[in-house]
């Protein structure tokens, strides 16, 4: 067909593509491609290839690489091609290098020069091609080489170039924000570009900038709002329309930016309400792009400071989305619902059927999104249904990534909302069983701790019941094949700790099970270690209880096997088991007390119990301990060494390594202060101090150190002892000997000490938070779990509120609705007006005249419909008041921006009348801000005047067009 060879490929290339297309297998395809590579290698290095031919070779290289084969032999030719003067060759060259090369590739350096030259070209197509390459190929180091050229292009004559230059700057910003930080003003300038396309392009970098820090851009809110307004009102040329929608991508970007700027910022948000409201109201829900804008508006509404009216409008749109047949819209609806639910939790209730439908949908994407929503909606009353659903889905999928994700969600919800211990354990069992190895090991540890500590109930019966139910369930599960390792560890631990606790199962039964397990999973050393320790514990409990221990033959053989294990850990455990069995009951009781797993272990960080021993050693001539950081502070070289060691030794704990450089600061000072306090041998000491600081040799230092030792025992060797210790030994000693070294020692050691303590404390805190949370969760569900569960299962939906909630919320929602409806009539207009007046006049006009006075004036005059209008408002006011009072007492959720919570009648009334007055007058006066004095004594006159003004050309606002007709008529 005619389309073939659009850019003039040879027959060879067409044949290649055809043969690849007809390849029956991957192997056959590979063969063809490899043959092609051979051909290209040969041809491409021939001398004097015509440009056209060369271009084709490059395209063929691209094609080969797209199919996953290495084409690096041709990169250099692509680079050469960028140097070509012919635009098309150049373009092909640029296309190839952008697809082939990373921005740190060695060949880039050969292109930068060309790019620089091309950016200065007279032909704008060359400039565009170069700009395209700039985005991909210029990295942090090469940015300065082209930056001035790009900045120059920002004021290029062609809008296409300006647009691309803005985007190139944007790509620099993404790669290295600091490189263009001084150019931010250029983005602001381009926002006012004559060409809407350039303005639209500028929104992209601004979005990123605002995303990083919105505060410097708050002043642009008004501009963004007015741009959005103009765009939405079709003020742009028709060529920017897309499917009759004015510049939809610009609208979406602007809405995203407004969402960022309005987040948590009430004054900024207030600027936006009108325009967003207009966009939602006029939104075209019949086209895809129209819905995209509607969805984006909802996102913005959910992000900015909330406004009841907008929320309502957003909820309507969501309802439309969810009711749609399109899966895409349902997806967007669910997503939007998830965003809005934080602001108004009740909104999901009316859509529960739709949500359930989405959950049953064959579409995975939709399902996952729905789980996301359910996760946000989970309460103690519905946790069971939701988690059950999640687990069901988790079992059904094979995508490990998502499985891990949803498993962690299940665990999180279960930990947070579990209605009963039994349910919690069952749930965790299911999660472990089906996603075991994907679950974080911490979850297993949490589960063990939970079983050990309970959910915070006080009575022991519940405790032991929890444990025995756990034991029971594990004994049942243990027989299943191929359990994940993490789960087996939990099982071993629980069986070892509590297997025989309630007396239902004999020790031999449990130990038999444990041995079977160790045998079945003999490749898994961790499981074996857990199993053997569990055996040790069970035997210890037996001995302590005074029963005779009969070791099963299989246990015996297991122990024997482990005694000879390659793993020293397993060996040690086996030996320990043997040793424990040989002890008498009292000793066993002391080393392995029953149910001691949750007793707090107090760690004596100073190891004070060793004091006596150390004293003794020092008296008998041993050297006192010198803390590591004092030593490292003494000698800079060794400082580095110990630094390195620390890094290599504790690879996982990198944060420690970062702190090391701080250590020398205090320790460098201490030698000096120490030397000043030591009066005995000041000269050699300071000399030595200086020496060591100048990187003394280790041998010399140790010499002087040992000679000093005889002169003075404290202070001096504390600094000098360093070289005598080899670093690795010292690091292991550091904690154990700390306390011995007297006062100065401790001072110096504080940095390290406190560091250790800090990390320890924080870890401890973390450990304590979880049970705290769980306790809270457990107390929330209290005794009423049963009834709760029934209600939740019967309603079987996410709605499933706690037993007493339905009436409550219904009671609240009924008057709410009524008030909503009534207030809508009366109230709805005022906020609209007020918002419309967001322009200067609203602040200027009303304060100038007392609203009450105005109102009175209006009421006095007899012939305006405005009177009846506002009169109606006033007459209605008491009703609303009652409603408000009613609602506030039941639930604090009035309607609209008028805060009913204040409960102050007068206040509200004044507000209402204020609004009415503003409406009455503003409709008229606001439009003519030039004469605020007109509405002085005679409201009727002023209204007439303003009406005339309006007739002259100003369109009346939609709220009260009758007003003027009546007045004139």
């Amino acid at each position, binding site marked *: *067909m005619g*389309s*073939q*060879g*659009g*850019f*003039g*490929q*040879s027959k060879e290339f*067409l044949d290649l*593509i055809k043969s690849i*297309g007809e390849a029956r297998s991957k192997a056959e395809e590979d063969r063809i491609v490899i043959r092609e590579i051979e051909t290209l290698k040969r041809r491409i290095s021939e001398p004097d290839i*015509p440009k*056209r031919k060369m271009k084709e070779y490059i*395209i063929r290289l*691209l*094609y080969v*690489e*797209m*199919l*996953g084969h290495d084409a690096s032999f041709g990169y250099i030719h692509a680079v050469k091609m960028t140097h070509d003067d012919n635009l*098309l060759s150049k*373009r092909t060259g640029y*296309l190839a290098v952008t*697809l082939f*090369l990373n921005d740190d590739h060695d060949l880039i350096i050969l292109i930068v020069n060309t790019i620089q030259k091309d950016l200065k070209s007279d032909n704008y*197509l060359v400039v565009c091609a170069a700009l*395209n390459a700039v*985005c*991909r190929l210029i990295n942090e180091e090469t940015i300065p080489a082209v930056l001035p050229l790009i900045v120059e292009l920002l004021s290029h004559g062609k809008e296409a170039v300006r*647009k691309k230059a803005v*985007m190139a700057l*944007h790509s620099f910003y993404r790669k290295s924000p600091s490189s263009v930080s001084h150019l931010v003003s250029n983005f602001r300038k381009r926002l006012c570009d004559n060409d809407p396309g350039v303005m639209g*392009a500028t929104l*992209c970098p601004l979005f990123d900038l605002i995303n990083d820090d919105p505060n410097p851009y708050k002043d642009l809110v008004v501009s963004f709002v007015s741009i959005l307004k103009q765009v939405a009102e079709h003020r742009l040329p028709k*060529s*920017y*329309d*897309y499917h009759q929608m004015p510049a*939809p*991508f610009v609208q*979406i970007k602007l809405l*995203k930016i407004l969402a960022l700027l309005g987040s948590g910022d009430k004054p900024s948000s207030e600027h936006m309400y009108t325009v967003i409201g207009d966009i939602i109201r006029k939104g075209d829900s019949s086209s*895809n*792009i129209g*819905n*995209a804008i509607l*969805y984006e508006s909802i996102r913005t509404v959910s992000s900015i400071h909330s406004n009841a009216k907008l929320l309502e409008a957003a909820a309507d749109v969501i309802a439309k989305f969810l009711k749609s047949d399109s*899966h*895409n819209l349902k*997806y*967007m609806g669910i997503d939007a619902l998830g965003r809005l639910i934080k602001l108004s939790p009740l909104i999901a209730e009316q859509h529960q059927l739709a949500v359930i439908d989405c959950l049953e949908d*064959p*579409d*995975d*994407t939709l399902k996952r999104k729905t789980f996301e929503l359910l996760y946000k909606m989970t309460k103690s009353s519905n946790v069971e249904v939701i988690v059950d659903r999640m687990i069901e889905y988790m079992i059904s999928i094979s*995508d*490990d*990534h*998502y499985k891990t994700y949803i498993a962690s969600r299940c665990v999180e919800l279960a930990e947070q909302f579990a209605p009963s211990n039994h349910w919690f354990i069952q749930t965790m069992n299911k999660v472990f069983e089906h996603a075991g190895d994907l679950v974080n090991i911490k979850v297993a540890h949490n589960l063990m701790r939970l079983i050990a500590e309970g959910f915070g109930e006080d009575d022991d019966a519940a405790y032991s019941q929890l444990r025995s139910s756990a034991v029971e369930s594990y004994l049942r599960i243990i027989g299943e094949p191929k359990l994940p390792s993490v789960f087996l560890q939990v099982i071993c631990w629980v069986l070892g700790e509590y297997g025989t606790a309630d007396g239902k199962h004999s020790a031999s039964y449990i130990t038999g099970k444990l041995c079977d397990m160790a045998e079945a999973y003999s490749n898994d050393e961790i499981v074996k270690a857990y199993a053997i320790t569990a055996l040790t514990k069970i035997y210890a409990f037996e001995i302590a209880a005074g029963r005779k221990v009969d070791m099963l033959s299989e246990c015996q053989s297991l122990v024997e096997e482990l005694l000879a294990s390659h793993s020293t850990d397993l060996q040690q455990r086996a030996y320990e088991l043997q040793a424990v069995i040989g002890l008498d009951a009292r000793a066993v009781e002391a080393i392995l007390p029953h149910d001691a797993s949750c007793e707090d272990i107090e760690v004596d960080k100073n190891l004070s119990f060793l004091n006596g021993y150390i004293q003794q050693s020092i008296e008998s001539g041993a050297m006192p301990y010198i803390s590591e950081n004092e030593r490292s502070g003494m000698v800079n070289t060794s400082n580095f060494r110990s630094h390195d060691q620390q890094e290599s030794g504790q690879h996982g704990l990198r944060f420690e390594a970062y702190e090391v450089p701080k250590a020398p600061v205090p320790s460098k000072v201490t030698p000096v202060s120490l030397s000043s306090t030591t009066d005995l041998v000041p000269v050699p000491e300071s000399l030595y101090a200086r020496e060591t600081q100048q990187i003394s040799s280790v041998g010399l230092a140790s010499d002087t150190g040992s000679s000093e030792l005889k002169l003075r025992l404290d202070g001096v060797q504390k600094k000098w002892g360093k070289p005598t210790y080899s670093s690795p030994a010292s690091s292991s000693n550091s904690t154990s000997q700390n306390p011995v070294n007297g006062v100065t020692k401790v001072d110096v050691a504080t940095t390290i000490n406190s560091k250790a303590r800090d990390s320890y404390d924080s870890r401890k805190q973390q450990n304590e938070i979880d049970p705290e949370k769980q306790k809270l969760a457990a107390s929330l569900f209290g005794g009423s779990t049963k009834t709760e569960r029934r209600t939740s299962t019967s309603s079987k939906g996410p709605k499933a509120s706690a037993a007493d909630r339905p009436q409550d919320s219904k009671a609240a929602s009924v008057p709410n609705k009524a008030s909503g409806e009534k207030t809508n009539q009366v109230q709805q207009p005022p906020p609209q007006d007020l918002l419309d007046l967001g322009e200067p006049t609203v602040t200027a006009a009303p304060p100038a005249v007392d609203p009450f006075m105005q109102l009175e004036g209006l009421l006095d005059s007899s012939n305006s419909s405005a009177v009846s209008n506002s009169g109606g408002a006033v007459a209605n006011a008491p009703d609303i008041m009652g409603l408000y009072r009613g609602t506030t007492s039941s639930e604090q959720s009035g309607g609209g921006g008028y805060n009913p919570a204040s409960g102050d009648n007068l206040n509200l009334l004044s507000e209402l009348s204020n609004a009415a007055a503003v409406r009455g007058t503003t409709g008229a006066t606001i439009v003519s801000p030039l004469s605020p004095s007109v509405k002085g004594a005679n409201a009727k006159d002023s209204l007439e005047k303003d009406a005339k003004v309006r007739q002259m050309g100003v369109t009346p606002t939609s709220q009260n067009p009758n007003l003027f007709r009546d007045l004139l008529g």
Partner: protein
Amino acid sequence: MIRAVLVMNTQGKPRLAKFYEFMPVEKQQEIIRNVFAVLCSRPEHVSNFVDAESFFGPDARLVYKHLATLYFVFIFDGSENELAMLDLIQVFVETLDKCFRNVCELDVVFNYSKMHTILDEIIFGGQVLETSSTEVMKAVEEISKLDAASSAINLVPKSVSSWRSR
């Protein structure tokens, strides 16, 4: 930001692959395979969105459109709107259609560099540049004019002249 644009046929053969951030060839292939595996397992009449986090890193979403024998796939992050991306695919396809008249897989295969030219006029450095297929066509034609002018020695003269006549 848009991270990648893929066009592949229903057998999983890539027809166009453009990554807006560098990606080693092996990783590209892996992504193409993964995307294809996900797409061909999806039933008909479901949404056009897929979560791409598992093979494209955090916050990656994917929108695809199945047209005749081709999948058009855009992968992007949270700063773009899914529905809008769907429309961007529409813009791309519309432009191709204008360019090739009833675009089919063969056109896509045989006009590899032209596909890139078109795409570069729609998406620039991962950002949406132009959404009007008329404008895109104008830009592409301007470049093609040069091509036609310079192709005095044409390898497939007939086809090019037929193309020029449009």
